[in-house]
């Protein structure tokens, strides 16, 4: 069940900025994300969405501001001040990161089963039968035929690769998943299937998610709240239906009115 009532935010961005020389990556972004909450970051290319995602997931160092994450022991920590072992723990267990391009999130030359099992081994699983069992179960959950468990992802279609990447991320039961345009580059029918699958998993597992997308339909279907970015700054925030049905800023109105009805 989704729990939105926890007192302490799971993740908090405080005045996050990133400058690339004189170019603004993003400027003064602040928000809080609670357990079980799905936040969509929308905006056009170059609006700073991906920079923000990299700052939040400690892959980039901010020029100013900080990211605070509440660890499993309930202690809120500044990401920049975590030790290497603690950071590794976050990446291997507590966080997932779904790339737009599944070849970045998968190991293309090892089997699907090993791709999923690897994350379990990284957190100490040793029993081959149990690892294979868990991998099989996850292939089922992401609707990949179990017979394909020993095949390498090179032999998979784009949609299957993306679903495998999701299984690899979720097998360790993370509390927070970052997603960078997870449905980008897929056929529309494949996109719809992936979205429904994601929606079900996020809901069932009570995941907190930060999802970067330029597709407002994706934001509508998956997210509770939306942040609209333009030129590296947050220009509008609110509940998903508030932002999409009652957009206030000129740019948000442009985004919403530019969607062609099917």
């Amino acid at each position, binding site marked *: 069940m989704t729990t*939105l*009532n926890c007192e302490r935010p799971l993740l908090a961005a405080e005045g996050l900025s990133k400058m690339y020389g004189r170019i603004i990556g993003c400027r003064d972004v602040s928000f809080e994300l609670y357990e079980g909450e799905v936040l969509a970051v929308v905006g056009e290319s170059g609006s700073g969405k991906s920079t923000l995602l990299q700052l939040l997931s400690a892959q980039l160092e901010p020029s100013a501001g900080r990211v605070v994450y509440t660890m499993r022991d309930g202690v809120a920590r500044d990401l920049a001040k975590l030790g290497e072992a603690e950071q590794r723990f976050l990446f291997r267990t507590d966080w997932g990161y779904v790339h737009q391009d599944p070849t970045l999130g998968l190991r293309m030359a090892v089997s699907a089963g090993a791709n999923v099992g690897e994350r379990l081994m990284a957190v100490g699983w040793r029993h081959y039968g149990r690892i294979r069992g868990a991998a099989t179960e996850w292939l089922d959950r992401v609707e990949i035929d179990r017979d394909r468990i020993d095949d390498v992802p090179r032999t998979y279609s784009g949609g299957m690769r993306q679903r495998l990447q999701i299984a690899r991320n979720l097998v360790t039961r993370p509390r927070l998943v970052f997603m960078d345009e997870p449905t980008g580059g897929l056929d529309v029918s494949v996109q719809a299937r992936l979205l*429904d699958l994601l929606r079900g998993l996020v809901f069932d597992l009570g995941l907190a998610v930060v999802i970067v997308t330029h597709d407002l339909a994706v934001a509508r*279907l998956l997210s*509770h709240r939306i942040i609209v970015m333009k030129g590296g700054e947050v220009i509008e925030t609110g*509940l998903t239906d*508030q932002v999409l049905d009652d957009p206030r800023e000129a740019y948000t*109105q*442009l985004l919403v009115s530019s969607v062609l009805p099917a």
Partner: protein
Amino acid sequence: MFAILEVIEARKSFTMHLQGGVCLPAVAGVNFLVHAGECVALIGPSGSGKSSILKMIFGSYRCDEGSIVLRHADTTTDIAASEPRRILALRRDTIAYVSQFLRAVPRVSALDVVAEPLVASGFDRETARARAGIMLQRLNIPERLWPIPPATFSGGEQQRVNIARGFLPVMPLLLLDEPTASLDAGNCDVVVALIAEKKRQGVAVVAIVHDADVRDAIADRVVDVAAFAAAA
């Protein structure tokens, strides 16, 4: 009886930036109360702002001014001034809303569309599905349609799935936007009976209903929205 909902001097306008920043006033000076066990019907011509008022109460439209006060279980919340998280929590346990059209999610079965709000409020999936089935049956959706996503259903069937979804959880406030618009007489009667049950349970109901017969059957009072449009 106490007021579950109190709308005080609420105002809403839309600034259309893409049309040269023209400001379209929707409603202003909106004032009304809804007590527990009472149904208030919003009346007025199309475009007078009835749906906008419902959306302001549900939190999907933001209020420019005024307050929308919800009293429930010893807590008082001003929806117009609430954080998104608070509004999400209210939608989970306090406010049910039946929109004019079902926003169908691909691949989710009609049964699960109806069961979903119960699951979100903490019921286990099997109980929620069992109750969803009973509600769908009352609304004459044949069992063979339950496993099918409602996207392919007729307008009337979709609307009944939408009604089942909104009516299944027991929430203190129920918002209805034209729930009977695309229903035949028999199904209208079912909805009228469901609303009467809600009122007996102490639910406060705000409804937009064009059909005068249905309105007479359910409404304890009417609020004429035209008065708020004139002030806007």
